[in-house]
């Protein structure tokens, strides 16, 4: 179970703040809550790590699925069956010492299996193994009609495709089965490369098809010829010896309260970015590291979202096709850099050509950029609306799991399968996100 208590009403970005009429706990997969008896729209909730409002259900019922936290079976060939509220942290804790690893992990290990499916999450190895959903073989879905449906590529295939990346709108996932990958050990052979600007990134990314994991950190405040400078990280699994710590323990450091919103401003972030950039070695460097800090650097600081203060933050993650890619990313960085907004960490990665299995899956071939922005009201929203236009023009998409503000028009442009998807929704399920982009 997550060491972060769920604070119903706010998501990870802490914007917007909402209320739920009721939070209901699901605890037994053989006896899920009777969904038809509940009043108001329903939505399942896991660790609450979605950034915007896709995990919120204002004035509706939230079904807390973190009590569905049991393993069911770990087969010899790495086929794992577990309930939907099991966290990726618990899975890693169990399987890594036995020589297995999750095929896909996001930037935090505090997400549930149900959440990972509902957002069809991706990781640093998207270019090799695709999304999380590509490794899910089947799951059971409880619908408000009282039906419980086994979904896989063979059984209820349309509902299977709608639920993967389906933002929790197709029903309550009770358990899932997924395929693990064999790894030589709990370490990562990590290579760090500093790059001067966006072109530097593209050069490294182009030559880089063989590394299992790749990601880059970018300084969103650098300008001119330094625009898009940053640090490229890549790695592969490595048989690191014994000195690795168990994983599921919570962080040692924790942000105890909301920071004053003045703490993070363009000056402090600029200084932090410069420090981070210069700390990275000028020449390529390689070393073996435990895998947790490589995959989950921010998990080291509990409740880091509070650094953005009471008003919270929004994360903007987009993907643009390779053809339009560099120019669009350049334009976005330029706009963020010259605005008066306060961008935190920027993350840049190249997605591979793997087809995402979900109707509403976000990942598609191209370049993806994610930026945190302190929420400063109208000006922040206006900047992001402008970025949406750039992404639409480029034929890309913005990630709903991180969104709290995209327009319905943008959503429909980014996810042309939305209409087909909506036919598979559970009529009783909804979310703040879904009502927002559908204008109700």
């Amino acid at each position, binding site marked *: 179970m997550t060491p972060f208590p769920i604070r119903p009403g706010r998501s990870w970005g802490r914007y917007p703040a909402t209320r739920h009429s009721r939070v209901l706990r699901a605890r037994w997969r053989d006896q899920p809550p009777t969904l038809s008896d509940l009043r108001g729209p329903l939505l399942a909730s896991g660790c609450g790590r979605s950034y915007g409002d896709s995990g919120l259900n204002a004035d509706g019922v939230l079904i807390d699925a973190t009590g569905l936290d*049991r393993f069911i079976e*770990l087969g010899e060939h790495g086929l794992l069956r577990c309930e939907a509220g099991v966290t990726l942290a618990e899975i890693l804790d169990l399987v890594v010492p036995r020589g297995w690893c999750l095929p896909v992990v996001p930037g935090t290990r505090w997400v549930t299996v149900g959440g990972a499916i509902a957002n069809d999450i991706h990781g640093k190895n998207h270019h090799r193994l695709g999304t999380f959903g590509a490794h899910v073989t089947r799951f059971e879905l409880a619908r408000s009609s009282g039906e419980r449906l086994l979904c896989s590529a063979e059984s209820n295939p349309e509902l299977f495709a709608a639920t993967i990346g389906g933002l929790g709108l197709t029903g309550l996932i009770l358990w899932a089965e997924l395929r693990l990958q064999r790894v030589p050990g709990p370490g990562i052979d990590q290579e760090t490369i500093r790059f001067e600007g966006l072109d530097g990134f593209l050069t490294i990314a182009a030559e880089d098809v063989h590394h299992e994991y790749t990601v880059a950190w970018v300084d969103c405040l650098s300008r001119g010829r330094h625009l898009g400078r940053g640090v490229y990280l890549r790695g592969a699994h490595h048989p690191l010896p014994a000195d690795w710590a168990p994983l599921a323990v919570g962080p040692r450091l924790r942000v105890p309260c909301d920071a004053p919103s003045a703490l993070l401003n363009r000056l402090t972030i600029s200084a932090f970015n410069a420090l981070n950039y210069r700390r990275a070695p000028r020449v390529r460097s390689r070393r073996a590291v435990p895998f947790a800090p490589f995959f989950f650097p921010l998990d080291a600081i509990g409740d880091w979202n509070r650094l953005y203060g009471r008003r919270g933050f929004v994360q903007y993650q987009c993907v643009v096709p390779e053809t339009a890619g560099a120019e669009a990313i350049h334009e976005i960085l330029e706009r963020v850099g010259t605005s008066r907004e306060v961008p935190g960490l920027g993350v840049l990665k190249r997605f591979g050509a793997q087809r995402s299995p979900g109707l509403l899956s976000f990942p598609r071939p191209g370049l993806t950029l994610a930026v945190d922005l302190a929420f400063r009201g109208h000006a922040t929203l206006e900047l992001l609306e402008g970025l949406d236009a750039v992404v639409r023009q480029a034929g890309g998409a913005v990630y709903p799991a991180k969104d709290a503000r995209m327009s319905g028009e943008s959503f429909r442009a980014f996810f042309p399968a939305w209409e087909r998807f909506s036919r598979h929704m559970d009529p009783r399920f909804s979310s703040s996100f879904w009502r927002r982009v559908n204008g109700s």
Partner: protein
Amino acid sequence: MEAEGRPRRVLIVGATSAIASEVARRYAAGGASLVLTGRNPARLAAVGDDLRVRGAGSVETEILDLLDRGRHAAVVKRAFGGPLDVALIAHGDLPDQQRCQTDPGEAARALELNLVATVELLTLLAGEFQAQGSGTIAVVTSVAGDRGRQSNYVYGAAKAGVGVFLQGLRQRLRATGVRVVTLKPGFVDTPMTAHLPPNPLASSPQRAARAIYRAIESHRDVAYIPWFWRPVMALIRAVPESLFKRLRL
């Protein structure tokens, strides 16, 4: 604190409770052999599967309704199918105090489950442990047994009864090498308490389980779960009855 070279064998009565199944996970991770009892077959099976995956050397399950007294002996016999290291009694049910006040049958039922059944089971276990000459008996009681309060005194009376029984049992078994651990959780955020208003002192089942596991493994006599309930309850016990009766606790 592993028994020399052999995986531990642990009986958990009431294994589907949120706290007990978390404690079981700690033993499972160490490769222990587990004997679990619970009332609901599907839930017991779900807990058993989870513990197998988490590393339990073996998991045996017994469907047991504690009010079905005829079955206690068979369950204890099965648990002692091998040398038993720990018996954790964690079953229980929070009765509806309001109903207990008007329905004597309900009050009696609450005492039967939370006190009488526990005493019966403990009597059987104590005999077997005594014959074995080693082992730990740990029982989940409650801070509610430390002082009677109008909001839950039927439950509190049952837990207080178990507490006194354990004090005597501890003395009796001391010389035989069998330990008796009284566990007193305060407010734990579990399905049993989900209908109550949120409590600022509530702890998670994980935290409670961690404290319980530690208390059992370090052979504490009486452990408050978590520790801060010890001073809190000391204070509550110290209030003179003439004043206490006026309080709205």
